[in-house]
């Protein structure tokens, strides 16, 4: 790469910091600003008193739901790895626990999960992980019709791609399954465990 393009030049994917990420961030920032700077306001949940009859969705463990959404977005196939095969759930846990991650990003991923659970409870009176394939598709298409929901799904896809194609040292791309599937040859030398980006940030 020689020329570093402007974020809006979507046809060009050679950026240091590529266009889609800029757009994602910029759309997120716009949505956040519209919600008064609050991630919670982007994903309105009922107040706890309104859900006294049921266990409030917001209080439950988000990770099984996230794993189920990842599996739906990136299903396993005979000749192509799915979210589980590339370790996408564990990879996203690593991302969310990374202290260098923007606090808004962490909150956005987790709050979006609660919101999905809440919408599923309202629509189907059951949890997302209990739904069959057709109903999961319906509810995800439904949330994709709102800007915040689409942005949330787009964010989950982004981290699935990171789990698919970044170095296995970060926990995704198990046994290089992503590289093998897409016939991608990694560069060398590959990063050892004591030279990951978190280590570099301490130099």
């Amino acid at each position: 790469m020689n020329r570093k393009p402007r974020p809006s030049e979507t046809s060009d994917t050679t950026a240091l910091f590529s266009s889609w990420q800029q757009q994602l961030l910029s759309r997120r920032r716009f949505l956040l600003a519209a919600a008064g700077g609050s991630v919670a306001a982007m994903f309105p949940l009922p107040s706890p008193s309104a859900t006294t009859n049921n266990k409030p969705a917001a209080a439950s463990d988000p990770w099984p739901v996230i794993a189920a959404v990842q599996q739906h977005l990136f299903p396993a196939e005979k000749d192509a790895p799915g979210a589980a095969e590339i370790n996408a759930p564990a990879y996203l846990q690593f991302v969310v626990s990374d202290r260098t991650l923007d606090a808004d990003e962490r909150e956005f991923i987790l709050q979006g999960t609660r919101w999905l659970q809440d919408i599923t409870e309202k629509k189907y009176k059951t949890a997302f992980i209990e739904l069959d394939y057709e109903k999961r598709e319906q509810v995800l298409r439904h949330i994709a019709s709102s800007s915040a929901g689409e942005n949330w799904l787009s964010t989950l896809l982004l981290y699935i791609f990171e789990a698919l194609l970044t170095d296995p040292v970060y926990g995704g791309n198990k046994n290089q399954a992503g590289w093998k599937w897409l016939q991608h040859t990694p560069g060398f030398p590959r990063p050892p465990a004591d030279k990951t980006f978190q280590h570099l940030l301490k130099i």
Partner: protein
Amino acid sequence: MKDFDICIIGSGAGGGPVALTLAEAGYSVVVLEKGPWFSEKDFYKDELACCRRSVYTPNLRDEQHVIEDLEDGRWNATPTSESGWDFWNGNCVGGSSNFMSGFFHRLKPVDFYQLSEFGPIEGANRADWPISYDELAPYYDRVEQVVGVSGKFEPHKNIEPRTADFPYPPTREHAVSGWIDKACDELGYHSLRVPRAILSEPQNTQQGNRRSCEYSGYCGSYGCSSGAKGSSRAALLDRAVSSGHCQVRPHSKVTRLISNAKGKITQVEYIDKNNRKQTLDAGIYVVACQAIETSRLLLHSTGPAFPDGLANNSGQVGKNLLFSAGGSGSGDFNFDDFDAAQLKQLRQLGPFVNRALDDWYTINDKQLAGRPLKGGIVEFLFAHPNPTSRANSLKWDDDKLLWGKPLKRKLESWFTTDRSLRFEVFNDWLPTDNCFVSLDRKIKDRWSTPVAKVRIGYHPHDLKIAAYLADKGEQVLKQLGAVRIDSSVSGSPPANLVAGGCRFGNDPKTSVLDKNCRAHEVENLYITDGSFMPTGGSVPYTWTIYANAFRVADIIKNL
């Protein structure tokens, strides 16, 4: 007794040559660098570290720019923390030269007198340089030796004057380079083998001790693990430090240059890693923070003799900022269109393309204009290896988010059925009154210093030239048998190709620096990054920045 003879602010391509030259001459030198000090042992082919987390550049919430863009006839200011448009290019020892591709081109003689040769353009501030190509040529030669440039001196239509061959043979080349040569030949164009600031053989001389390129296929914005890439850090600063006369202080963010009533710099003020304010003094101060930050530092460094910023009583600091005009294009080679032997060649990773066209550096085309116009170059290259970014760009089907099996089929198709060849166009970004650096009145960085506000207006003439050149690039791709050929030109500045803001010239009213790159108004201030350039030329800047910094270092050495 001063703390140091020479204080250099910034450790990139503008700072390194001065540090090395003066340290080896026995001066005591200190280099203040805002970012950390990585070495080869920290650079791996890690897409997350390189391209997806802010490892080599600041978090935009801590340090940012404000960009003024023309929208509906109004200048609209947007902080980059909101837009995500990152104008940092590498904040660490060695600066952005750690992350360059190292496509090295000299300016051509005509770049030094564009105003005389091509005449004025309305709305542009073209100017001749106060030095000629001949004055810079020995320093281009020195860069070849010291930084290490690989190439071959071959007769060529537009080749700039030079005497000796390159000190290193060309880097290994991809089969497609030969295909490009053939296609250009068929079209009557003269393909040019591009010199690279990448060692093709180990450097094991008094100039340094570095390994040669290992052809991992992951170059460009990845830091170099072998030391072959000619960054200021690997090629110059490591050596400067080993001379025993140069200290590099990382995590040292300079906030002000303090000057007295006589207009001389007396001290530099900086913040260290522990957020403590420090000062030091030196005989001569050399600023090389990359163009935007250099102008910002001067504008912020007011003093009794400089109410509008250091060396800025002319009002010229920050003016006539330059980027590189142009655009890019690409075409795909469908694997199905090639036989097995060709396919093996096409899929090879590692070796470089190393081809450009400079047939239209000066355009003589009656259909475009009745007189010669300043043109530029077309550079061919493979796409940058950033698979995660590529995958993620495929998730949209127009405006609809794709997932599930349709997404996976699209990924398979993109990654496994073809290979893209790209080209980039470089032409002059004409200097205008609409492209300059000032200080933002509201937004500050994490050290409470006003951030740079950058107005990024371009001249429409730039797009006309870029489109002319992009058409030539497309013709070559067509001749090569590529499909899905596309190109675009744009007035958006590439943030990593920046120069100007502190022009050098003979008239103190219209320039900040004299021909030696010393400030007209400040006798102990030199500027050695790309800021000095009054016009940009039509090639990436790094070789010229290196060469000029070596030239200025010799001037300081001989004071």
